[in-house]
């Protein structure tokens, strides 16, 4: 038990200490520092549960290892013969129920918060393609902007022929841009198979399902660049379709929107070109045939 106690103290303090520094430093050991209210709730909820679980773990296995070291036959231990105790058994059935209630209460509030996607300032549709993301600004400032976001990590970095960059596999040609402090509603859908739009720092992961629209929301309170991945296996290049979101000031966002819309107006009437004049938008997704279809030609950063 002394040994268990010595081990336990730092183990219990670890998440507390890491929570204190988490707001600033990205951790290799924990969820990324949250920048949305939902993300912060999830972060705290995880810390709470981790601590409760660690305490129970230390208590239960403190008892077990006490038995392992003390009640050994080689130390002359003689077995007792008890094999039931109704009150103890009822206690260790009822008490966990109350612990679970304590966990479920904050979790319920977060679920209800996550699911409340009403009254967005800006609505953006994210469409999953094999293997890239398409973004349509549907409502709010920036309405009408649409572009495709491809992995921008060069092929020779993946193949090992060039040194890997700082944001290896987490960088795109056309990042999603949103203003800080605004309620952004993300509608997700897909063109071919199921994808999942995920930005860990926002606490948002929403599957993009062909033929259906789902939604999620976030309000990023800190400017910066936030990166994520497709989180649902979607075929060959599932690992090569990152999400990159730039959260910028209101002023910078307004300027970005103006540039995008100007570039869009200058583009051919078929529309859908990006500011950089890069990739045209593939065919409208909605309820596309889910069956086998050739991958978009410009999609593949890896394997052929």
């Amino acid at each position: 038990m002394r040994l268990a106690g010595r081990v336990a103290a730092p183990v219990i303090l670890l998440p507390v200490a890491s929570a204190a520094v988490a707001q600033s430093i990205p951790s290799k050991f924990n969820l990324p520092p949250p920048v949305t209210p939902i993300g912060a709730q999830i972060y705290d909820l995880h810390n709470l549960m981790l601590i409760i679980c660690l305490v129970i773990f230390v208590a239960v296995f403190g008892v077990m290892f006490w038995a392992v070291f003390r009640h050994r036959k080689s130390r002359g231990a003689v077995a007792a013969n008890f094999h039931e105790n109704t009150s103890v058994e009822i206690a260790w059935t009822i008490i966990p129920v109350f612990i679970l209630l304590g966990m479920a209460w904050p979790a319920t509030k977060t679920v209800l918060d996550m699911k409340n996607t009403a009254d967005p300032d800006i609505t953006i549709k994210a469409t999953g393609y094999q293997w890239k993301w398409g973004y349509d600004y549907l409502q709010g400032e920036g309405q009408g902007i649409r572009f495709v976001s491809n992995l921008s990590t060069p092929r020779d970095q993946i193949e090992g022929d060039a040194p890997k960059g700082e944001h290896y596999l987490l960088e795109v040609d056309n990042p999603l841009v949103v203003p800080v402090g605004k309620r952004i509603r993300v509608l997700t859908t897909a063109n071919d198979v199921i994808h999942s739009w995920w930005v860990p720092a926002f606490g948002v992961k929403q599957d993009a399902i062909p033929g259906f629209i789902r939604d999620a929301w976030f309000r990023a309170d800190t400017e910066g660049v936030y990166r994520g991945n497709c989180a649902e296996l979607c075929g060959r290049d599932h690992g090569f379709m990152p999400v990159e979101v730039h959260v910028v000031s209101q002023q910078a966002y307004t300027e970005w929107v103006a540039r995008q819309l100007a570039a869009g107006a200058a583009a051919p009437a078929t529309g859908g070109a990006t500011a950089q004049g890069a990739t045209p938008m593939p065919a409208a997704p909605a309820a596309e045939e889910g069956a086998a279809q050739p991958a978009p030609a410009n999609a593949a950063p890896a394997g052929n």
Partner: protein
Amino acid sequence: MAAVTPDQLHDHHHGPTGLMRWVTTTNHKDIGTMYLIFSFVMFLSGGVLALTIRAELFQPGLQIVQPEFFNQLTTMHGLVMIFGAIMPAFVGFANWQIPLMIGASDMAFARMNNWSFWLLPPAAILLIGSFFVPGGATAAGWTMYAPLSVQMGIGQDMAIFAVHIMGISSIMGAINIVVTVLNMRAPGMTLMKMPLFCWTWLITAYLLIAVMPVLAGAVTMVLTDRHFGTSFFNAAGGGDPVMYQHIFWFFGHPEVYIMILPAFGIISQIIPTFARKPLFGYASMVYATAAIAILSFSVWAHHMFTTGMPAVGQLFFMYATMLIAVPTGVKVFNWVATMWRGSLSFEPPMLWAVGFILVFTIGGFTGLIVAVAPIDIQVQDTYYVVAHFHYVLVAGSLFALFGGAYYWLPKWTGHMPDERLGKIHFWCSMVFFNIAFFPMHFLGLAGMPRRIPDYALQFADFNMLATIGAFGFGLSQLIFIVVAVKCVRGGAKAAARAWEGADGLEWTVPSPAPYHTFEEAPVVR
């Protein structure tokens, strides 16, 4: 009492010899042995796939395999380990042990028993053989989510047929176990006197009968979507891709308990033996097992929190899932209470059992954490989930299987397994398992998705560590081959009661157990 009476009471070796003995055998011990050998071969095959995956993930960048083949490896690793290794291994234990533990002369349907085993090798050939067909094996994940599985080549069809065949095999095995346990117990052995291993298998068998047809339905719908123009999972034709997930996980979550409840049973046999003290809370163990099984039917959508279901749906499945922690906790508490004030010794079976409790409980806690919907949305489809289910499937099911193997090898072979090698096997497995899988919790929390052949640079350190652990773990399993072969060939003679504290009918017959046992049913007081 005995529903099956062997024809030749005194001429035990009347049947065919050589290979045909094994092809035609209806003896539960022969069939159990074949199940165990088959599952170990599949375990090694799935292990080779896993080590190829880990080799590719040793460093960032693509070095060894291309992404499409990588996805085939992860898919087939899952299918081979679940349907080829873990499930048949438990059926092997059931075949060997249930008749011995309830005092029956054999399984109830001896010929069906033969068939349910011999369906497995063709299924395995279909599964492994799919690597060599045009387009290779299916790369849609072991979950075979539509519409991705609809895009796959002929390897997908082979996997679907393999799953069909293995499902039929499992259902027949399960029917056999239910009928044997309910009808062939020795006089005096009431249900509540039955060893816990038989109880957990009885409940598992009902789960199998309930959910394997559901899986068959799901994959059959994928098959018709692929080839016959149906649109079960195609929105353009009025179907719904998410419906596949609902059907799949209605099978898939009970399946999780199919793979762990018999493990609970094995642990509940080993702990009292080496604590030299009866199992604490026998009745509550039975009720907890039943409670877990019943709850397992109402939690399936916790695998689907990110598909976007209504808040009420998320809350229901979150609460129901959290509730499973209660009966699971009861089991852990009961095992610890069994050890408390016992007279403990730590031969290899006990090491595996204690290791199981410790490491499985970590998997139980992470299971509770991912049950909470908001946290699950953050860690769904990341390495956190990979860590979680390997803690319950490897440190859970597999550790229990090894514990059971060391425990009953004396009864099967007549020789004690090499204790020193058994301990080395345990400690290597325990240490390397944790080196391989513990860092994956951190990887998942920090944001590394699963099923990717290449990753961002921030994940490099832990991936390298995990790969080292995985190779150590994989190589450690070769020790078991040495132990098993040595034990079959010779070693210290095992007494009928091979372990000092062992209790139960199987320890009343000689070691090795004669070809036919309990031709006359024993009487249990």
